[in-house]
């Protein structure tokens, strides 16, 4: 199909236009035309690095996910700040846990790994070779199974709805 050939990633193109206009900080004919040129050229030269075309679910699910992640980041920030300030370093119980994955698409796993890192208190360190589990390091986890359940029920379930 012609459209698929010249616009391999329509969503990436839209995102590039929006970001370029935001960078220019004004909406004029010049910026929009240049944004469209970039939005055609960049996906074309980068498509061999990203051959898959991820389906993206409905926009409300994405907004809901974003808000939940923002809220969790706020809460976790305060919790981790408390840990850093008021606990002795050797009374913390760091733990490495294995989070088994139900997600299969590479984009969804990347989003999950990024979310885990951005919420303070947990950092994604590694992926298993067959991409079926993530290695997550927790700053203070007296109950490692609780962390796994949290990640799976709060983030992974929603990402599965968005990407699969």
């Amino acid at each position, binding site marked *: 199909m012609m459209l698929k050939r010249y616009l391999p990633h329509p969503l990436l193109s839209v995102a590039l236009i929006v970001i370029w206009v935001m960078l220019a900080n004004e909406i004029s004919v010049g910026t929009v035309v240049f944004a469209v040129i970039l939005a055609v050229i960049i996906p074309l030269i980068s498509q061999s690095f990203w051959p898959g075309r991820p389906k993206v679910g409905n926009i409300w699910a994405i907004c809901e996910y974003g808000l939940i992640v923002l809220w969790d980041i706020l809460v976790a*920030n305060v919790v981790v700040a408390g840990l850093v300030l008021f606990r002795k370093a050797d009374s913390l119980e*760091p733990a490495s*846990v294995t989070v088994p994955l139900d997600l299969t698409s590479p984009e969804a*796993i990347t989003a999950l790994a990024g979310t885990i890192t*951005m919420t303070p208190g947990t*950092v*994604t360190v590694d992926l298993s070779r*067959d991409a079926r*589990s993530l*290695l997550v390091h927790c700053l203070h986890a007296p109950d490692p199974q609780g962390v796994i359940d949290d990640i799976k029920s709060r983030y992974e379930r929603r990402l599965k709805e968005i990407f699969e």
Partner: protein
Amino acid sequence: MEFFAELVISVLIVIGGLFTLIGSFGLVKLPHLLMRLHAPTKATTVGVGSILIASMLFFWIEQGTFTIHELLITIFLFLTAPITANLIGKAYLLRHVDPHEELPHTGEKEGWATFDPRHPEEYPKDPGKLPQEEARKTD
């Protein structure tokens, strides 16, 4: 109104500064590299986030110009910070951690990617698919 706006902006800047300070303090205080990795995630989320919101509010209310660059900075930070943390973590695992003694098992037949990298010939023919998808097809 003017006073109220200034109050909100100052509070946001103080919160941002406070969380950045706690993040840096965490870097000094925590004993191991993997634990120290948790501190900067705080500085880049709430710390930078509230300073950027304060900057947006300041230019919008005090100067009357609406800038959107702060939102972009947030997006770029959220995209790049996890990758940096992941690479630092992987480098640390590779150099200082014994995968059999100190890491939990993957729960699958195969090990962690850092210690058990895939031979180039084993990569799936279609790079858009993960090995597990190919494996499921052949199951």
